[in-house]
């Protein structure tokens, strides 16, 4: 891989040991994929909080941040594990507070913008069409490629952070136009998509993700007026059961106004996968891992709830009460929480017994201490969140629509439809 003079100096240690380490990672990464050169990045997003970093990861980050290592590109950060403004109230153990504080100090020293959000493209990190970016967080990475048309590979956090420090990334994979072609056709025209809820799109994504693996699919017959929450639901779930970095939603993805455009030339005559409603129903059953109906908790926000999702939850809860034996949490960014307060939604939600927590997401952060506090059976409207809550933390999960989740939180029992 060809390196610029500055990059070669960085590799020799001229910009300090942190930048040197970052350059070493990128050089090895570029060599693995036979990248010809590095391309400048305009935006970086990194993930990772204590439950996934563990003590060893915190130390790695602290080591990197010593000696004045700084990011040189606008870099935002995914959610942390607890809302610092509710730490006392939520009985967050000192052990975790100390570790989140250490991560905070390291990231601040590195110059990372501390958004603590996984909907960073809604709160200030918006690349443009064709931009080269490095977004870790597999869901938002596929969103950037497929909805915005910016170019990011499925970079792990260490690569994203290295790119933020060096300001460039090896040019391979989805950074190159010829690698952005669709590789298979998924026809969803047989489903009644006009009546699809975002949760239905998540179940659809769960099923299709298992089939596509790392290939780039082109979806045909997605309604052009699909709500953005449906798009997010589909894309974010595809990267849980699969590993694709780009999805062509024909008629929606900027690079795919037509199937021909998705294939950058001639579209194949045959469809590879035709999805039936049975497949989606089976995915619903597979996503839920619980058998006990009594609910300890309903948790929303994987990815963090947008203001539109919270408006829906508030409307469903208005004048009602969450069951005394069940907690209801809404995880979002600090920005959206402030907006909730301004719009009176916070009052509605709090009167109903719901809690809005900022700076966290419902996939990983809170489950570590929630489990220690006795939470075991949880209801979620996120297939992605259900996967991580179950597999990372051993939670028993029920998966359903927002409406089913709210209804269940009020009943204190899972009240989802039989599918």
């Amino acid at each position, binding site marked *: 891989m060809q390196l610029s003079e500055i990059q070669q100096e960085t590799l020799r240690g001229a910009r300090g040991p942190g930048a040197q380490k970052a350059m070493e*990672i990128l050089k*090895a*990464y570029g060599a*693995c*994929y036979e990248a010809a050169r590095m391309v400048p990045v305009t935006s970086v997003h990194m*993930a*990772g909080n204590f439950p*996934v*970093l*563990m*003590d*060893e*990861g915190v130390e*790695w980050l602290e080591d990197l941040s010593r000696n004045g290592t700084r990011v040189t590109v606008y870099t935002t950060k995914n959610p942390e594990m607890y809302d610092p403004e509710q730490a006392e109230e939520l009985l967050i153990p000192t052990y975790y507070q100390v570790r989140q504080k250490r991560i905070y100090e390291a990231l601040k020293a590195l110059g990372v913008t501390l958004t603590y959000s996984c909907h960073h493209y809604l709160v200030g990190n918006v690349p443009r069409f064709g931009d080269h970016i490095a977004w*870790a*967080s*597999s869901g938002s*990475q596929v969103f950037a490629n497929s909805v915005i048309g910016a170019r990011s*590979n*499925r*970079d*792990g*956090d*260490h*690569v*994203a952070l290295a790119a933020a420090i060096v300001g460039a990334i090896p040019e391979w*994979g989805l950074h190159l136009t010829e690698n952005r072609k669709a590789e298979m056709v998924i026809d969803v025209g047989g489903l009644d998509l006009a009546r699809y809820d975002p949760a239905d799109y998540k179940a659809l994504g769960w099923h299709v993700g298992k089939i596509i*693996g*790392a290939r780039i699919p082109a979806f045909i017959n997605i309604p052009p007026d699909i709500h953005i929450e449906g798009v997010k639901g589909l894309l974010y779930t595809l*990267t*849980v*059961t*699969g*590993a694709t970095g780009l999805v062509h939603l024909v008629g929606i993805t900027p690079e795919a106004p037509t199937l021909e455009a998705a294939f950058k030339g001639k579209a194949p005559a045959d469809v590879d996968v035709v999805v039936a409603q049975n497949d989606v129903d089976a995915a619903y059953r597979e996503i839920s*891992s619980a058998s006990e109906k009594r609910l300890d908790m309903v948790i929303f926000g994987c990815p963090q709830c947008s203001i539109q999702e919270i408006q829906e939850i508030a409307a469903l809860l208005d004048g009602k009460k969450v069951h005394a034996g069940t907690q209801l949490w809404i995880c979002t960014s600090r920005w959206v929480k402030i907006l909730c307060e301004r719009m009176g939604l916070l009052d509605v939600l709090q009167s109903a017994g719901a809690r809005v927590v900022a700076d966290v997401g419902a996939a*990983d952060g809170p489950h570590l201490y929630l489990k220690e506090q006795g939470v075991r059976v949880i209801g979620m409207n996120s297939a992605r969140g259900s*996967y*991580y809550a*179950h*597999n*990372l933390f051993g939670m028993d999960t029920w998966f359903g629509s927002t409406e089913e989740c709210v209804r269940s939180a009020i009943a204190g029992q899972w009240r989802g439809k039989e599918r």
Partner: protein
Amino acid sequence: MIIKAKPVTRGVAQGEAIVSRMAISFTGGMDPDTGIIREPGHELEGKSVAGKILVFPAGKGSTTGSWQFYAAFKRGNAPLGIINVKAEGVVAVSAIITGVPMVHEPERDPFQYIETGDLVKIDADEGLIEIVK
């Protein structure tokens, strides 16, 4: 038998192979405290990859996987070496930051020649997989 492959990292590792035809997610899919694959329904569910030569098609799932792999490595529960059909970014950087020998794009289908329990050597300096048996 020797199969040529492309190096991802450097170094040599020899050990017992553990083979899966299914993709692996290090976040959620592998317990860093034991190296046990814990994804329900996974071909290797309940089996440990610690100290083994792990052969699988590619990574999948969360991009935070490299943190979990790093923690597993520091706790002595990472595989000794990795053979992938195609290195996915998260697996590649996991090997890069830990220095675990890793190769990908083998010239022959590894699933045809390597079975769980085989003694396998990865020479990532030379880009070679040797099946010692």
